[in-house]
């Protein structure tokens, strides 16, 4: 994965800043609660939701178990339909391929449809280094790009900003990228959307090269699918002469029919709509192979690994590859709501990010080793996931990798991960607790000691205990442990 976010502080420290930012807290609370309730309503309309969820999971699992087969089928179908397929093992290779394809067109500008994969690999930075300007066209991506900011949500990358903050970005930055914001721009979302429409229209109408991702790729037909709302996707996918799509290898599904599941579950899970405004499906260069002037004359598909096969090698962790990037898990997550997306130090924030990033990037960096612990294991994410990813299960699995070490795969090679630094004291404490808990005699003595010390009742503990007492009183130890009461009151009976 790209180094963009590396060197980030670990999650707890980054989250501390977010928790103290009252504006951010209010923005996130408002946005996540709005969408949370709407999603619940949209899902409750479908009596067969649980069956659609089970089918979506099964399709993804089946595809992953035969991933090589389906990718080869996809490659054959895309090629037969006039497209060209490229394979990239990592971010650097993908960036090289895309840069070369753009340079070969002679163009120095590309328009982009929102795509997690291209953010993950840092494509915009790579293109910039080659003298190519990449313009984000999704409204939220545009806001983030113009504000020199980082995305904080999968679906709505500017969720951390409110309308007034977005107006400021447009007022001060839009002119540097092209058509400036209209004078007297207000902060009504309609006005802001109108400003983006006017600004981007010029770019769409003359763009010659577009870069996209895709939500799904159909192996049997070679069909690519992009879900969107604004129409920027349609602009990029149909007007330019050259289209380059960078797509993670886990996005393939076997058959066209399989889309009947995800066309029902993805919109309801992500934007809480029965259907999103626009979905585009295209197969290579179409029936006329590009001769009818409907759509690009050249289509390139770049299949991206970048840690996905390492994730696939892990029998527990591979379920994260079922993810369809709906972001329902972010919207219900109580930790995301308080910590915000930036604290996760990755383009994939929230619960899904906490299990994806440490698998795609490994757990060497402090931020990645802290992500599996960025959860109370409350299970709300699993409950709403439309492909039934048991996120708490994977979090626990990755905690084990961090704390205890164990087997993993990195860049295709089986390795043994050593326990992470910084867990030594914790390991000793939990081991000591276990030894105590294994010996009821010693446990009883310890409990009595606690009861005897009850008069001390400290308000603040030193060392690691401070983490509790900074915000909370300690429980008051009782006069005697339960087992002593039992021995006294009922002991004779047993």
């Amino acid at each position: 994965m790209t180094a963009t976010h590396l060197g980030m502080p670990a999650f707890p420290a980054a989250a501390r800043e977010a928790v103290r930012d009252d504006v951010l807290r209010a923005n996130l609370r408002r946005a996540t609660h709005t969408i949370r309730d709407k999603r619940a309503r949209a899902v409750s309309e479908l009596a067969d939701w649980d069956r659609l969820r089970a089918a979506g999971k099964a399709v993804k699992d089946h595809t992953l178990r035969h991933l090589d087969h389906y990718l080869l089928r996809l490659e054959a179908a895309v090629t037969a339909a006039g497209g060209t397929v490229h394979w990239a093992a990592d971010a650097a290779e993908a960036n090289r391929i895309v840069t070369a394809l753009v340079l070969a067109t002679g163009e120095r500008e590309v328009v982009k449809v929102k795509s997690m994969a291209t953010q993950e690999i840092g494509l915009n930075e790579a293109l910039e280094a080659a003298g190519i300007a990449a313009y984000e066209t999704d409204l939220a991506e545009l806001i983030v790009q113009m504000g020199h900011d980082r995305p904080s949500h999968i679906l709505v990358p500017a969720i951390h900003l409110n309308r007034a903050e977005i107006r400021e970005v447009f007022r001060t930055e839009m002119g540097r990228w092209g058509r400036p914001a209209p004078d007297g721009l207000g902060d009504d979302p309609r006005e802001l959307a109108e400003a983006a429409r006017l600004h981007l229209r010029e770019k769409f109408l003359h763009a010659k090269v577009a870069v996209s991702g895709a939500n799904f790729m159909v192996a049997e037909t070679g069909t690519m699918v992009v879900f969107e709302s604004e129409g920027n996707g349609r602009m990029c996918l149909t007007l330019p002469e050259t289209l380059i799509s960078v797509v993670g290898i886990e996005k393939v599904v076997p058959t066209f029919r399989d889309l009947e599941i995800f066309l029902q579950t993805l919109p309801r899970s992500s934007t809480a709509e029965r259907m999103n405004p626009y979905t585009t499906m295209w197969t290579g260069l179409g029936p006329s192979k590009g001769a009818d002037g409907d759509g690009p004359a050249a289509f390139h598909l770049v299949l991206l690994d970048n840690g996905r096969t390492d994730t696939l090698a892990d029998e527990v962790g591979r379920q994260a590859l079922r993810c369809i990037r709906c972001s329902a898990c972010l919207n219900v997550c109580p930790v995301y709501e308080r910590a915000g997306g930036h604290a996760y130090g990755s383009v994939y924030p929230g619960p899904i990010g906490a299990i994806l990033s440490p698998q795609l990037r490994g757990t060497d960096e402090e931020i990645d080793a802290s992500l599996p612990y960025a959860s109370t294991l409350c299970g709300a994410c699993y409950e709403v996931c439309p492909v039934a990813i048991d996120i708490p299960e994977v979090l626990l699995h990755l905690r084990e990798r961090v704390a205890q070490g164990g087997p993993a795969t990195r860049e295709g090679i089986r390795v043994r991960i050593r326990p992470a630094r910084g867990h030594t004291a914790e390991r000793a404490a939990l081991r000591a607790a276990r030894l105590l808990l294994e010996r009821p005699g010693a446990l009883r003595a310890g409990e009595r000691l606690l009861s005897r010390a009850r008069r001390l009742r400290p308000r603040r503990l030193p060392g690691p205990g401070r983490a509790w007492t900074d915000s909370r009183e300690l429980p008051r130890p009782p006069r005697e442990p339960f087992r002593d009461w039992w021995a006294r009151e009922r002991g004779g009976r047993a």
Partner: protein
Amino acid sequence: MRAALFVTCVNDALYPRTGVAVVRLLERLGVDVDFPAAQSCCGQPQYNTGYRYESEPLLRRTARAFAGYPYVVAPSGSCVAMIREHYPRIGARAAAEGRGNELADLAAGLVPRVYELTEFLVDVLGVTDVGAYFPHTVTYHPSCHGLRALGLGDRPRRLLAAVRGLDLIELPGAEECCGFGGTFAVKNPDVSAAMGADKVRAARATGAEVLCGADNSCLAHLDGTLRRAGAPLRTLHIAEILASTDEAATTTEGKHPR
């Protein structure tokens, strides 16, 4: 009917009144309660922090301590979820690592006999009115593991609603996590505290006298947050409310014996 009480380590050491309440409640309902002294902790703190191997001896100890009892009842959704959801996984992983089926067999033998308290009352004993009397306003926070891992549903609310004198007030945003999360409370103290503060704010806004829960570890976090704020709202485990009768009333004054 004979049942073993799995009081859990947190209740044993810090909340014995909850254990006492479970014993009195179950005995009142005609259950022959036993407390196997060999029990200690289910191993959840180790397992949830990433130390699966450290949790294995505790799985073994727990399974053996409760061998032979037709029912094992615990006043903690979290500890029951640990046993029901994770013991089989720990067993399967050990088997997959070539360490035999001992843990898997122990887990398989224990899991079907273990019940969270409100499950045991409603599903096994078939009661929702346990004959309790508790003349106070109460709001109920369903802890996540009980709510989502065990699917306790409205069992606790039905039990509370049947208590004579009790006025049950719905807690807005009840299904949201309180922010305890085991070692999360100290590993991510700022987020944990922020979640706790929001939960406490919602509970105080109901105007209830008592914030009731079915997991004392979550209640320790909320109680600590409330006391730091000097709030008059008291926390109580559901067992203590259900055990309360005209003759032996649980008070809302000071949760712990002085």
